[in-house]
């Protein structure tokens, strides 16, 4: 099953690997997307005014990768993990510890060990979540996420709330060579190594997405789908449900670990509990998956990039309130989340795919531009109706049903 061309349902398709066939249009879009990512550092350098910066986009990519892992559990096994930061942070901290305390600099070794650490963490946490489903599962994962958060906070050797740097090694390492390195290239925060790391990350992400694609299409993936839709039935068809869920949990944790390790290599001075382990990071990862579209494969990844770019912009928004000028980044994030939940539940990619809200609306619009009129009126009526309903509810609450 080598790469090549094939014809299916009268449509030309290009086979990239076993089981992955794309229409020429899709392939072009995919390559364009990847190409755009590769060019991003150059674009960022040359457009001062646009909100395109390498650092937030990189953070978006790695969080997006973690979200792809989370999505594996969510989309297929119907399990919402609210503690994914635990794996992300474990990997990041492992990198920091190895550089700062054990003097290890090879990026390959750092990543490998960090991913193993995250995998072990996932195996451990996953074990405790096995008897649970649904909301209780989310609750337990959140609690374990906070447990992971509380560990470095309480241990001063791990940097406390300030965190660690994956920079300075112990004594004996020459100044100027204290950074993680890939061959002769030191990740010292300068432009060139950052760009290289950026590109390496894109490659890792593409490979990870391809692997995920295969996983989803495998018998394992189908079994997970069955478990997610009707767990008891799956069990009584002969699936050892707990083992499969545990395995899926570990796999999702591995993705989080890879993401965390990549994060630590790039943001070597920001490995602290607040940025890598806190419940808000877990929330971000989940939010990213939903924003991008959790019923899709690439959605969470794209959600990550969009999210970080928007966050970057939102964090500068300031409102003058009773307490003076206040940054309202979280308020904006919350508001966007509400829009997604009520308006675009299939997320960005989900809405843009055929069958999605934005795609279908776009098609209708192209075919018949005059539909804008009725739409606006409908939207207006919708808002008025919602307002009336809210007022009615409040009236019922206060005065009872009349």
């Amino acid at each position: 099953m080598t790469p090549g061309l094939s014809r299916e349902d009268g449509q030309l398709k290009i086979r990239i690997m076993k089981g992955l066939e794309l229409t020429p249009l899709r392939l072009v879009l995919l390559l364009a997307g990847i190409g755009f990512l590769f060019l991003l550092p150059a674009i960022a350098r040359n457009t001062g005014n646009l909100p395109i910066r390498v650092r937030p986009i990189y953070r978006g990519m790695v969080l997006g990768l973690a979200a792809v892992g989370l999505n594996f559990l969510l989309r297929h096994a119907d399990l919402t993990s609210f503690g994914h930061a635990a794996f992300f942070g474990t990997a990041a901290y492992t990198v920091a510890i190895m550089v700062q305390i054990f003097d290890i600099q090879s990026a390959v070794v750092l990543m490998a060990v960090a991913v193993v650490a995250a995998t072990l963490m996932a195996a451990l946490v996953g074990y405790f979540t096995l008897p649970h489903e649904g909301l209780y599962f989310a609750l337990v994962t959140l609690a374990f996420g906070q447990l992971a958060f509380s560990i470095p906070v309480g241990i001063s050797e791990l940097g406390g709330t300030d965190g660690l740097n994956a920079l300075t090694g112990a004594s004996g390492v020459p100044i100027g060579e204290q950074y993680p390195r890939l061959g002769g290239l030191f990740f010292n925060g300068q432009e060139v190594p950052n760009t290289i790391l950026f590109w390496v990350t894109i490659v890792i992400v593409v490979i990870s997405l391809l692997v995920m694609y295969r996983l989803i299409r495998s018998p394992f993936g189908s079994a997970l789908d069955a478990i997610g839709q009707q767990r008891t039935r799956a069990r009584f068809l002969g699936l050892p449900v707990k083992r499969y869920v545990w395995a899926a949990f570990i796999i999702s944790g591995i993705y989080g670990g890879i993401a965390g390790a990549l994060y630590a290599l790039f943001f070597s001075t920001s490995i602290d509990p607040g940025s890598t382990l806190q419940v808000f990071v877990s929330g971000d990862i989940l939010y990213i998956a939903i924003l991008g579209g959790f019923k899709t494969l690439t959605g969470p990844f794209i959600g990550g990039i969009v999210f970080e770019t928007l966050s970057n912009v939102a964090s500068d928004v300031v409102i003058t309130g009773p307490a003076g000028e206040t940054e309202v980044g979280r308020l904006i994030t919350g508001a966007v989340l509400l829009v997604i939940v009520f308006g675009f539940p299939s997320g960005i990619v989900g809405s843009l795919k055929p069958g999605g809200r934005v795609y279908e609306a776009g098609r209708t619009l192209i075919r018949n531009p005059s539909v804008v009129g009725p739409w606006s009126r409908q939207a207006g009526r919708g808002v008025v109706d919602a307002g009336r309903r809210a007022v009615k509810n409040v009236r019922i609450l206060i005065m009872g049903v009349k």
Partner: protein
Amino acid sequence: MLEAKGLKKSFGNIQATDDVSVEFGQEEGELVFIVGPNGAGKSTLINLLTGLLEPDEGSVVLDGEEITGLRPDERVHKGLVRSFQVVKVFEEMTVRENIRTAILIKEQMTGGWTPSSFFGGLFSLADEHEEVEGKIDDLIEQFRLEDAAETVADELPHGDRKLLDVAMSFALDPNYLLLDEPTSGVSAQETDYVIETIVEVSEQQNVTTVTIEHDMDLVKGYADRVIALHQGSVHGEGPPSMLETDQELRRLLLGVEE
């Protein structure tokens, strides 16, 4: 042979199953019907036999092997399959996909779970074989689900959902099949058909079938043997004629006054 030996199970103060010892399938392909008023412990017995519940006392033996400690999925690998009173099917899949899932899982799990089969399954692709499709078609035909084959499960009418549940159970090639009220909520015309199909396929494939049923006419029509439960214990066992002759049983089941 599937045996229940001295099974006991209580929930709080209620003794749901009280020292039940029965056996099924001494004759291969036997058709047994379990009857009894509500709360008699019929579903509990099936839950104990299939591993959904752990007995307080007693054991379950399958083909000479003690399986009391085995998980439900392990029992399925040994040929013990069940359906559910409240239909459990994969709601977002079509009828065809539901049955295919059952067959694929069976294929994946043949021989039980091993690490190598698991890791193999991680990266291979779930290809569609022609034999699998053929088997799906057969089952769809047998259970008269052709019109519904491409319908998503949660949009099916109740009777079709019941049929799908049973079809999926048969897709696993069971040796012993425990059916929990397969005709409950099914319309009068369909009821006959459901039981007929079950009996037909069971006989074809020599499956020992144990069915919980409330409709006495059906029981009398098809049963090889009837087991009557009452308040957690076995009230009586015997041929279907027992339903006519055992007055106390008639009173319990039908409220017939003397």
